[in-house]
């Protein structure tokens, strides 16, 4: 026969449970501290080395053989232009793909295969994307070692991220909202256009920005497609290049990006260049953190008006 525990036994039991609580708490804290402290040390070291090098000239100068005169103008302009191409390609494709998978596709083995592949693609090493781009965009399509090629490559790279986060955003919209809209006589596209996309926007934007902040730091695929490491000119401003100058000449321009510039400087023997690399890394980290902060802020702002 069982009997109720007497109070002393209950207290002993609770003490034992509490001990585990405490141990796990401490373990978790230690794990967290290892991660955060490592990152913080690296960041502080980089900041101490790099910050003295930051000046207006650093942002407005091209790379140079002399470390003290070298800057990151071509690198940050290149990064921003490549990100623009990436976003313009990856955002519509990713959202459309996700909407199709969530709202249109029938559940069958084919969609299962596609789904598994998208998840796998997110885990493919980025250099593989570089090799794909080298074979496809450069050798097959002849797009050259250009901003366009880099943008397309990084777009492929972040497409799985955009698709996955968009799908999650759509899936988090309750089914009864869809039913309510359909019951009003809305067509599938109307439900998507009037409800799912607007309500999913905070999540979708977050995914897009997280994807872009991943892309901005990618080095391997950019090296593979042959970004130059020493670029002392900017891509042509629309309509100003050699005639016949067009709106999109910059897409075909050779380029460099921040991580490439950093990589180049780090591999030089002169320690003055290492200082440049630290300064550029500091800027790159800020670009990434800035984008993440923007994502958080946007999500917060937009979510305020969406509740079920």
């Amino acid at each position, binding site marked *: 026969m069982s009997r109720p525990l007497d109070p002393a036994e209950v207290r002993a039991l609770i003490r034992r449970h509490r001990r585990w609580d405490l141990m796990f708490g401490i373990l978790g804290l230690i794990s967290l501290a290892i991660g955060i402290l490592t990152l913080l040390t690296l960041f502080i070291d980089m900041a101490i080395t790099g910050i003295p090098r930051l000046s207006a000239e650093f942002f407005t100068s091209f790379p140079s053989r002399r470390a003290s005169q070298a800057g990151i103008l071509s690198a940050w302009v290149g990064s921003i232009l490549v990100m623009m191409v990436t976003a313009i390609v990856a955002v519509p494709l990713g959202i459309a793909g996700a909407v199709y998978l969530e709202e249109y596709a029938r559940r069958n083995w084919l969609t299962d295969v596609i789904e598994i592949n998208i998840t796998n693609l997110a885990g493919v090493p980025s250099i593989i994307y570089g090799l794909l781009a080298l074979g496809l965009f450069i050798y097959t399509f002849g797009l050259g070692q250009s901003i366009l090629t880099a943008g397309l490559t990084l777009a492929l790279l972040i497409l799985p991220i955009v698709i996955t986060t968009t799908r999650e955003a759509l899936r988090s919209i309750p089914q009864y909202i869809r039913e*309510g809209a359909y*019951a*009003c*006589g809305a067509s599938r596209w*109307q439900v998507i256009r009037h409800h799912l996309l607007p309500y999913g926007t905070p999540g979708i934007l977050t995914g897009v920005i997280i994807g872009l902040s991943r892309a901005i730091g990618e080095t391997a695929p950019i090296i593979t497609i042959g970004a130059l490491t020493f670029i002392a000119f900017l891509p042509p401003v629309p309509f100003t290049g050699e005639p016949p100058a067009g709106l999109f000449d910059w897409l075909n321009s050779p380029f460099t990006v921040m991580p490439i510039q950093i990589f180049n400087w780090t591999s030089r023997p002169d320690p003055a260049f290492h200082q440049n690399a630290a300064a550029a890394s500091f800027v790159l980290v800020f670009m990434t953190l800035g984008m993440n902060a923007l994502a958080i802020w946007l999500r917060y702002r937009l979510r305020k008006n969406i509740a079920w």
Partner: protein
Amino acid sequence: MPSTITLPAQPGELKAEARDLDFFYGAYQALKTISMPIYARKVTALIGPSGCGKSTFLRCFNRMHDLYPGHRYAGSIQLFPDAVNILDPQVDPIEVRMRISMVFQKPNPFPKSIYENVAYGLRVRGEKRRSYLDDKVEEALRSAALWNEAKDRLDELAVNLSGGQQQRLCIARALATDPEIILFDEPTSALDPIATGSIEELVSEIKKKVTILIVTHNMQQAARVSDFTAYMYLGDLVEFGETKEIFMKPRRKETEDYITGRFG
């Protein structure tokens, strides 16, 4: 199991009629040869224990099942006056939903303004004239007894309303498009007694213009608001008749047991 159907001595105008309706989720048969009339501008209540198929039956009327794979209809639901079979695969479910609107169990306003919620059905129909929309929104909110509370806050988010107000907003949304039938799927099960009372009053008011089909698990509610009652059990229609007949002198033992609380 054959249904016991008692038609009223003076049957009114017929709005819809289910004939030998079967419904399947995959291989599972959720509705078994259901035949019953729906009279115009009357309230027909569907009652029965959980899982009896009353919501499934209701959701056939606006083809809600079409949103999900694995559904199959057999038999027909004719909608009058044009006698179109709304379950016919040739009939677009959107057309059906434009004629028959629905109010759900849990209030489900869109995360938009009060105004946009009510106007949504009209927007879907491509209506853009602002003054027309304004008029229809006001008319629908008045019919849903929400105008006085909402008129000064039409631009506020609908989710800021209380649960009862949200449900009345959903009724206004369903009314704004001048539907021929409104389907209510346990519209008060998420509401407190006072809000429930106001929704019931509303149903009695709305039926002057619109035919109403209401699913309820609350028998007092069925007795209070409905003109006709259908008792369903395990996918069968057991008994259909005038509400007072069903509640005062049911023909079938099963109905009597359920209504008197001996079962279910």
